[in-house]
């Protein structure tokens, strides 16, 4: 009886590990898609609303997925402090905090970092261009992440379950 219980626990644990790993892979494309949506919201605020950046950032944070809202709300908070930081610097600071707890890869963060340089520093036309570039890069990254996730997530899920089974068989 205890043996069966132990086997179940082992199998469960291994499966969980597998699914967690898979989850990390699935998180990245999801977050990238959310980010794309967030940037699109920001585009609307900047191009059509001509909303000042702190407000625009707060608007985006309120309307996008909570998983990535921190990036936008943190930028807004940095700007609101009026400590003499530019939008680019505020974005960088927010990004530094955000990068710790995100599933995004370094190259994804690099896209965001590059985008920050021009943030708020030019007229509408120019902002539109930079937003477009960042959006298309995010979309590409999302597609790539999606493909990687499909491949890897399944692998890790199977690996977890099968590894668990194997362990059970060996120990039984």
């Amino acid at each position, binding site marked *: 009886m205890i043996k069966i219980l132990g086997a179940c626990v082992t199998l469960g644990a291994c499966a969980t590990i597998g699914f967690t790993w898979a989850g990390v892979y699935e998180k990245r494309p999801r977050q990238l898609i959310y980010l794309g949506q967030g940037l699109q919201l920001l585009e609307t605020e900047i191009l059509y609303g001509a909303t000042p950046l702190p407000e625009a950032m707060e608007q985006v944070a309120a309307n996008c997925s909570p998983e990535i809202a921190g990036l936008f709300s943190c930028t807004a908070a940095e700007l609101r402090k009026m400590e003499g930081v530019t939008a680019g610097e505020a974005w960088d600071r927010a990004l530094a905090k955000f990068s710790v707890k995100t599933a995004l890869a370094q190259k994804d963060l690099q896209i965001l970092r590059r985008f920050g340089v021009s943030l*708020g520093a030019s*007229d509408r036309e120019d902002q539109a261009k930079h937003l477009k570039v960042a959006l298309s890069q995010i979309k590409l990254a999302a597609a790539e992440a999606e493909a990687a996730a499909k491949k890897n997530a399944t692998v890790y899920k199977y690996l977890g379950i099968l590894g668990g089974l194997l362990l059970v068989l060996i120990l039984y």
Partner: protein
Amino acid sequence: MADGAAVQSKNCIKDRDTMVCMISRDILPVLPNRIREIIVELPGDTLNQIEEIRLRQGKPLIVGLTREDALVTPLGQVTTVPEFGYMVTDQDMKRTVQLISGSSIYAFEEELKNGFITIRGGHRVGIAGKVVVDRAKVKTVKYITGLNIRVAREVTGAADRVLPYLIDPVSGEFCHTLIISPPRCGKTTLLRDIIRQVSTGIPKLEFGGCPVGVVDERSEIAGCYHGIPQKDVGIRTDVLDGCPKAEGMMMLIRAMGPRIIAADEIGRQEDAAALEEALNAGIKVLTTAHGAGREEISQRPVLRYIMEQGIFEKLIILGRSRGVGTIEDIIDCRADKSLL
């Protein structure tokens, strides 16, 4: 910015240092940290006199004072030697532009076309640089290399001396008034204080206060920031911020029901038409014109036309013979005589 915060808290308590307080509250936040530290180090009496702060790329930092201007060293001392002055860098300029616009230059395209941005507190920042023109019209200003931060003063009580002359003793109504003044003589300050007092009411003159509509084309009168007046313009005042004068007057007449319409610096053809429209609607008009006196403004076609129509009942003539905002004369147009 511990220094700045200390200066702020220390000075905001004392009423006589409101100027310093205003600078640390409104002006310092739009300056890069390096320049903030320099301004904070300036001697107290210099700080109190600041009327403008000028930033020009590659040139020394200059503060405009009541009488003259002064170059400022990197340590916050006043100097006359250009070489000792703090040289404003390219980075300083870029950063200031971002801070002034709240990092949202795209939101200020209209303002850039007009050559200035109004910041919190109603202070105006003038802009110079490379102008981009599209179809013979200014599109935007790129490469901003010159900034002039003009500290807007608010002098409550500036209108105390003139107000008794502007209210008709018989009907108790406000008179159609034109303020004539050369630039920088306190024209807008006087206009703002008249608006504030007639809007809130003047108990001393038994004037109850009435709705005032302000067309603030250049955001100077009410100093609006996000549409909210930063200056005290009275409790019954509606402001159309950044609105062309003639159109604005019509908008106010249509639905806001003002008893008095105020606007700054009339002089264009359509302004005259809008003034006549206001008159026909039975609304009193309060406005200003650039000029040294009655004769000088009569040389300008539109103003001459307005004067010939006999629209205005009272003229106030400002000058600086005894300092900024000296009231040189008040003329009763109907009787054609001086009231002073």
